[in-house]
């Protein structure tokens, strides 16, 4: 059996804001059905890397290959590509003027051009998966943070993406609400979703991740199995960071 093709790949990826070089040549690849945790100190470029993966941030150099397609090539329709790369944000970013169902169906109707009843059906199915069927007609401001984040996950899932990106999905939540979101992510993982997760939920990473990559100052310093990274880091910077967050 030959080695599986990566679904997402970054080659020598660079991003600068003015003179600040935030990503300094990232090489990263993600296999189908893999779950990778991205950890590292604040400001190390984790969010920027994630946002380059769907070109919310425009890279200043290097390549991103998604499912065999070069995302930087000028004749790529980035909007259809983005539908295959789901994203979940730290601040949920639900649309406050739309109901939960409409939040989920907007892109289905306007980009995938599904008719309302089909889109509503998909929304109902997704809400069932995140355990929020009864909130279909609620507005975001009637939900707790944890519920909002689960709706945001449902919104991304509804488009049947091939990869999902999570940027600190639980760090804006009260501690008692974190569990419900992690549970949904675990279920997603069990269903075989390919995921990149920026998060410092160490226990979850240990249980669920296939791989952990440690970033510092715009570079991936070290990567490996969760056990290896957390118990036996090789690099000084990784050691310092791991001992910092496990305290």
């Amino acid at each position, binding site marked *: 059996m030959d080695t599986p093709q990566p679904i997402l790949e970054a080659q020598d990826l660079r991003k600068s804001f003015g003179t600040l070089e935030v990503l300094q040549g990232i090489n990263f690849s993600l296999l189908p059905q893999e779950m990778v945790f991205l950890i590292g100190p604040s400001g190390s470029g984790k969010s920027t890397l994630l*946002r380059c993966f*769907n070109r*919310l941030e425009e890279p200043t150099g290097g390549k991103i290959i998604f499912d065999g397609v070069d995302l930087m090539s000028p004749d790529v329709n980035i*909007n*259809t*590509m*983005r*539908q295959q*790369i*789901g*994203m979940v*944000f730290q*601040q949920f*970013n*639900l*649309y*406050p*003027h739309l109901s939960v169902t409409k939040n989920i169906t*907007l*892109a289905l109707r*306007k*980009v*995938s051009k599904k008719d309302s009843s089909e889109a509503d059906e998909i929304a109902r199915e997704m809400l069932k998966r995140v355990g929020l069927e009864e909130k279909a007609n609620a507005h975001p401001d009637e939900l707790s943070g944890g519920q909002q984040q689960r709706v*945001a996950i449902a*919104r*991304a899932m509804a*488009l049947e993406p091939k990869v999902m990106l999570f940027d600190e999905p639980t760090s804006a939540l009260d501690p008692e609400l974190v569990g419900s979101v992690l549970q949904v992510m675990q279920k997603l993982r069990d269903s075989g979703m390919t995921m990149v997760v920026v998060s410092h939920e160490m226990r979850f990473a240990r249980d669920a991740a296939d791989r952990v990559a440690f970033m510092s100052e715009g570079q991936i310093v070290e990567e490996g199995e969760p056990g290896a990274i957390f118990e036996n880091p090789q690099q000084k910077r990784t050691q310092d960071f791991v001992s910092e967050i496990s305290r």
Partner: protein
Amino acid sequence: MNTSETFSRWDLFTETFFNQRLIDEYSGAIAKGILITCEIAVLVVFTGIALGLLLAMLRSYRFLPINVFISCFVDILRSLPPLVLILLAYFGLPSIGFSMSGFLVLWLVLSLILAAFAEEIFWAGILSIRRGQWEAARSTGLGHTQTIVYVIIPQAIRMTVAPLTNRTIAITKNTALGTVIGVGEILNQASTAQSFSGNATPLMMGAIAYIVLFIPVVAIGRWIETRFAWRRI
């Protein structure tokens, strides 16, 4: 001062400002003026706000030459007195081959002015929406225009309602400037009738027409302002 003199002064006052014969004679003209004022006002409100919204949306693409143009357009129309623009368009344009009726000039000028103010207000509203809303929408594959239409504008509208209402009312009242270029709106009908009759009654009728027309508008504006309480922090 004896009673009979008081009476005669009162009579003189009503004779001059509320002369029944003149009220009968000129109410038709004033009614026509009201109609024209309303026509222009409605046209200006629709074209002005639509154009302002369009410009604000265009501006969100952040395409430099277009943004410079929009900024200059807005600044110039906010800096110039409406009457200057009206005179310029009405008397100036014919000399380069564009003859427009007073009605058209008034509509055009007031619409452009309202568009400029509306653009500023909509743009401030668009800027007030957090970046996360753009990112969430774009990450699900919505394009720029779809994001603006379905996600950003519906949220921005809320904070634009109050300032936009006030500005719209203020600009709509400028329809009275049409009298200078012979548009037969209320003030024009009233002043014409006044100079014909040599009596202040038509002017009083015109003033009352404006008050009857605009007091409800101002009151609605006040209600909207409290309803959509929009305070700068």
